[in-house]
């Protein structure tokens, strides 16, 4: 991707963002709140001080990983929205490892390994059904997300339940937790795991033969087939890799998020991280580096959303409304060109400056 192409993508993202916030402001007004104080609180709560920024980064950590799941698929021309269900199982697998009282180092490694494996295993049926039966991944991933949710509900309530507190699972063992990066906040060293994964995915997609094959398949599947790229290998690779990062997202969230280091029944803290990752991937234009920035921005909105709820009384969910509108507009490939027609509309003669009148005359 050339430099100018990146600039184009960035312009598009910014335009979609501006539209999203504008429509959001309109909706906030419609419900009788004050959009200016709401957005002020939102941005202060997101990036106002070290504490807010740490919270934003903490929110970004799992989002980067679930966004990578989607981005790898998207680059290969596949619409993998299964991060949600894979993330649940990754998180549960991490908790399950703490069930056995292992030495810290071994427990730590095993927690991460089990989480990524759980994510990958849950994505396998999607890949197999797509490769052998042609089942569209949108349908299979959504169904598996729901199945995963109820499976996890069962595991939380019956198997991994905390004997002292029935509303949550056992907590991840002390030695298995990811240490905090900024004490007093939710930000752990887990953010570096996410950055690391993003870099690995970048190298994978743009610096390896497999990555080239994936992007070729996404760009033009017919040409890729004629070039001898085997579709089933791409499908399997894309979904398994996506499952790995989604599973890791679950681990990073449970092992690195104070104060409970456990999962409550109903999974309130991890539900939605997969779908938010999907939006993050699109806002980051499905590029690992773009995703890091998009995740920090969006993690910031979630952190700031709490402030908005407290001080301007606008429910946090407004953030998701804005996000939806942004994604809707990002779907339009020629958004930038579409808006450039505005420049062609010329104001009536008397409102024009002397210079533009001269320009007009020259054109005639």
């Amino acid at each position: 991707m050339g430099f100018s192409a990146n600039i184009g993508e960035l312009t598009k993202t910014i335009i979609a963002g501006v539209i999203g916030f504008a429509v959001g402001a309109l909706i906030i007004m419609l419900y009788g709140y004050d959009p200016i104080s709401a957005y002020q609180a939102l941005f202060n709560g997101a990036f106002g001080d070290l504490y807010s920024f740490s919270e934003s980064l903490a929110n970004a950590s799992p989002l980067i990983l679930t966004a990578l799941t989607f981005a790898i698929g998207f680059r290969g021309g596949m619409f993998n929205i299964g991060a949600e269900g894979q993330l649940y199982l990754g998180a549960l697998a991490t908790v399950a490892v703490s069930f056995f009282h292992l030495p810290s180092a071994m427990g730590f490694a095993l927690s991460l390994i089990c989480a990524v494996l759980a994510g990958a295993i849950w994505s396998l049926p999607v890949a197999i059904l797509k490769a052998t039966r042609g089942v569209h991944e949108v349908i299979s991933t959504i169904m598996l997300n729901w199945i995963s949710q109820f499976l996890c509900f069962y595991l939380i309530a019956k198997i991994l339940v905390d004997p002292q507190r029935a509303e949550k699972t056992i907590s991840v063992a002390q030695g298995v937790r990811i240490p905090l990066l900024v004490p007093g906040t939710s930000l752990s060293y887990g953010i570096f795991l996410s950055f690391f994964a993003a870099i690995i995915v970048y190298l994978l997609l743009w610096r390896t033969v497999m990555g080239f094959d994936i992007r070729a398949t996404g760009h033009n599947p017919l040409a890729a087939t004629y070039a001898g790229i085997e579709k089933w290998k791409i499908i399997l690779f894309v979904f398994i890799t996506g499952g790995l990062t989604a599973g890791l997202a679950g681990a990073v969230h449970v092992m690195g998020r104070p104060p409970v280091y456990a999962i409550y029944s109903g999974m309130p803290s991890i539900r939605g991280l997969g779908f938010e990752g999907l939006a993050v991937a699109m806002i980051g234009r499905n590029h690992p580096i773009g995703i890091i920035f998009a995740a920090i921005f969006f993690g910031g909105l979630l952190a700031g959303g709490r402030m908005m709820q407290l001080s301007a009384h606008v429910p946090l969910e407004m953030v998701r409304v804005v996000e939806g509108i942004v994604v809707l507009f990002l779907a339009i490939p020629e958004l930038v060109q579409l808006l450039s027609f505005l420049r062609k509309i010329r104001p009536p003669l008397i409102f024009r400056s002397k210079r533009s009148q001269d320009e007009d005359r020259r054109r005639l």
Partner: protein
Amino acid sequence: MNLAYLWGIFLGSLHAMVPITLTATGEVIGESAGLFNIGLEGIILLSAMTGALGAEAAGPSVGFLVGLGTGFAIGLIFGLVCTYFKGVQLIAGVGINLFSAGLVTFWLIHLGVPGHHAVAEESQMVNISTRYGDFSPMIFVAIALPVLIYILLFRTKLGLKIRAVGENPQAADVAGINIHLLRLLSTAAGASLAGLAGAYISVNWLGSVTKEISAGRGFIALATVVFSGLNPLLVLLGGFIFGFFDNLAVWVATMPAVQKVIPWQFVAMAPYAVTLLVVTGVIGRARFPAAMGIPYGRE
């Protein structure tokens, strides 16, 4: 277990069938014209909300109309993005789902009780009481509509045009059909049926709105469309199968004996697992319009 009991299960399945059949029938129109709308889930959710408020303001039939209108409006936005503006359909659909999920949760908090809004008894649509049990009038709509849409798609000139813009838009364009307009109207008409399904859920069937009231039914409807191979009559069959399993979880909740053997979580998985299995089983013979999912532009 006697006959009356089985009849009760059948009746429950019929009620659970309605939203899936309505949504899937609508999506058949849209997909025949070449637009794949994964935003149906969001449309059902948002229409359940607006439909409920409409019903509380002016009665159940207005609630249904508001739901229908909400679906149409969102369908128009989706259609505009995906026809005239050549948007990527899957992404636009995801945008609609995110937007709706956010807005409905926002709205529920705004209304006071977070997460749940019960529709007042007097604003709900009244079921038809017969000797054989209570029937929602929407059951008859859900059975008649696929038949009507079948006739529309396969026995009328308009239906031929709709299928033409989905199958071969270049040829249809040459024949003088306005591709973008017809696609836009088809998907909006389809989305308005999803809106009707949403209103049915909140105003008639379940009588409440929660942020998860759609519970994946939009996606199950998409699977039903795959099952049907774009034949509205098969949508009716598929809708009933999925409705049966959707109802199963409700049924088991009233049976402590069954719950002891199978935990409720596993029963709740059933509709999704069955959907996945059925789609896997039938996918080979389903055939979809050649130009589905591809934005149209003159070369």
